[in-house]
């Protein structure tokens, strides 16, 4: 399979979501994604990896190999996990520079922008910030 660009990955997600015509179907899909997201090992759920959202706790683990970033994550809330799964799908195996300048447009394109508002406080905002902070650590000077 040819390697997709970040842009292509985002477009692919958007077209997947276009297949659902109602909100419950979209969330059903997110829940499935959340259930499928590989678990991270319990010992990786440390305070340094914790993103304290108001309602559910989210953990992010980042690694850097061969110039690319790899992420894994977990959350107490399954919908949050599903959304994180999408984020990881878009940003995995990308180099830090690309991650830093990516506009994660797909989130609002699929109608999940409400999860970015601080009131939802589900850690998604903090999640994106944390991913970018991790990427910043590995920027080549």
């Amino acid at each position, binding site marked *: 399979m040819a390697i997709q660009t970040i842009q292509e990955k985002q477009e692919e997600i958007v077209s997947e979501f276009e297949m659902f015509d*109602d*909100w*419950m179907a979209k*969330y*059903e899909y997110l*829940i499935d994604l959340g259930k499928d997201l590989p678990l991270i090992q319990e010992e990786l759920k440390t305070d340094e990896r914790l993103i304290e959202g*108001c*309602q*559910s*706790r989210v953990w992010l683990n980042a690694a850097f190999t061969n110039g690319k970033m790899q992420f894994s994550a977990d959350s*107490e*809330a*399954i*919908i*949050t996990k599903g959304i994180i799964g999408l984020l990881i799908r878009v940003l995995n195996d990308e180099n830090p520079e690309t991650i830093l300048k990516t506009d994660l447009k797909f989130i609002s394109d699929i109608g999940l922008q409400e999860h970015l508002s601080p009131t939802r*406080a*589900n850690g998604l905002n903090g999640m994106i910030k944390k991913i970018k902070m991790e990427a910043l650590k590995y920027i080549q000077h």
Partner: protein
Amino acid sequence: MTEIIKKPFNVREIREEFPALRQEIYGKSLIYFDNGATSQKPQIVLNAINKFYSKENANIHRGVHFMSQKATTEFEEARKKIQHFINARKAEEVIFTKGTTDGINLVASSYGELLTAGDEILITAMEHHSNIVPWQLLCQRKGLILRVAPINFKGELIVEEFDILLSKKTKLLAITHISNTLGTINPVKELTQKAHAVGAKVLLDGAQSIQHMKIDVKDLDCDFYVFSSHKLFGPTGIGVLYGKEDLLDRMPPYQGGGDMISRVTFEHTSYNELPFKFEAGTPHIAGGICLGTSVGFLNSIDLDGAQKHEGELTKYAEHLLDTFEGLQIIGEAKNKTSVISFTVDGIHPFDIGTLLDKQGIAVRTGHHCTQPLMDFYKIPGTTRASFAFYNTKEEIDLFVEAVEKSINMLK
């Protein structure tokens, strides 16, 4: 005073008064079950807000001109309506604040000035952060001690433990009348008597009681009672601190500024009398007037019937939810109001709340600003449905169906 004969409570008719209830969310008819957070506003209040800003807007207590005098009269009339609504002795005992939180902070800052190191403040384990943090700050500032009366797993205050913690050192009992998370109604009249017997003053957090029961501050005999307009079908940004006159008189001012003074020189300032002593600066004039409108609206309806209806809704919903496997209702006090908090084994409240939202149902999820209470139950949060008199049994049926659907999706 002649008693007005009121039409018996009718939920269909009441709903007509609340335009916010007639809307669709995600293509579904809105079911608003987040009344514990804030209530919707009747048309008469919306009209009053519009009318004030369209025709009557003027600053109060200071103008010579017609509009200012009219606005002043209306603002003071609202104060009197509130006085009668809570049965305070005098209008001067009704202080306008920004809300419950502001009222508690006022008391903590001002009454707190009368306290000295070693004095104790007694709260309970079911308090809202608004009735915890101001006391913690005061304790740090003045070297006071904060005591916390524990609760049992049903969510009731353990009165025997309360009795042990209450002592001659207690200078203030600050307690919620009704828990926003559990719905528990505390026996505040009895607790007030006990507190007074040891010489302590009593502050009741009325944020959740003012809209669910008849409040009579004389009968309760509390020294302070605080509430927010927005939970009483009125505007946000305004609320009330009731305080007994002699106590308020003894307390130093809270904030300085215009309106709260009687004479200012650079050497010495003397303060205005009650209630203005505690109302520095231009108040939320429209808010105060329209809270008066809301109180007028409530006076016009059969509140006993409304409360009975709320009680029936709660019993009905609890009865239906009880049949769900793995669902626990948090807060099973014998004496409770129309709040149902619950958890479901293996499912995070945020997920349930999100799915309910997509089905047009507004509930609250999380810790409800009562983190110590969540720690007590060892849960991250709950899903909370809180009813008002405009909610219906049909809405509860739809809600219960939606909860079931959500649980099935998340399992």
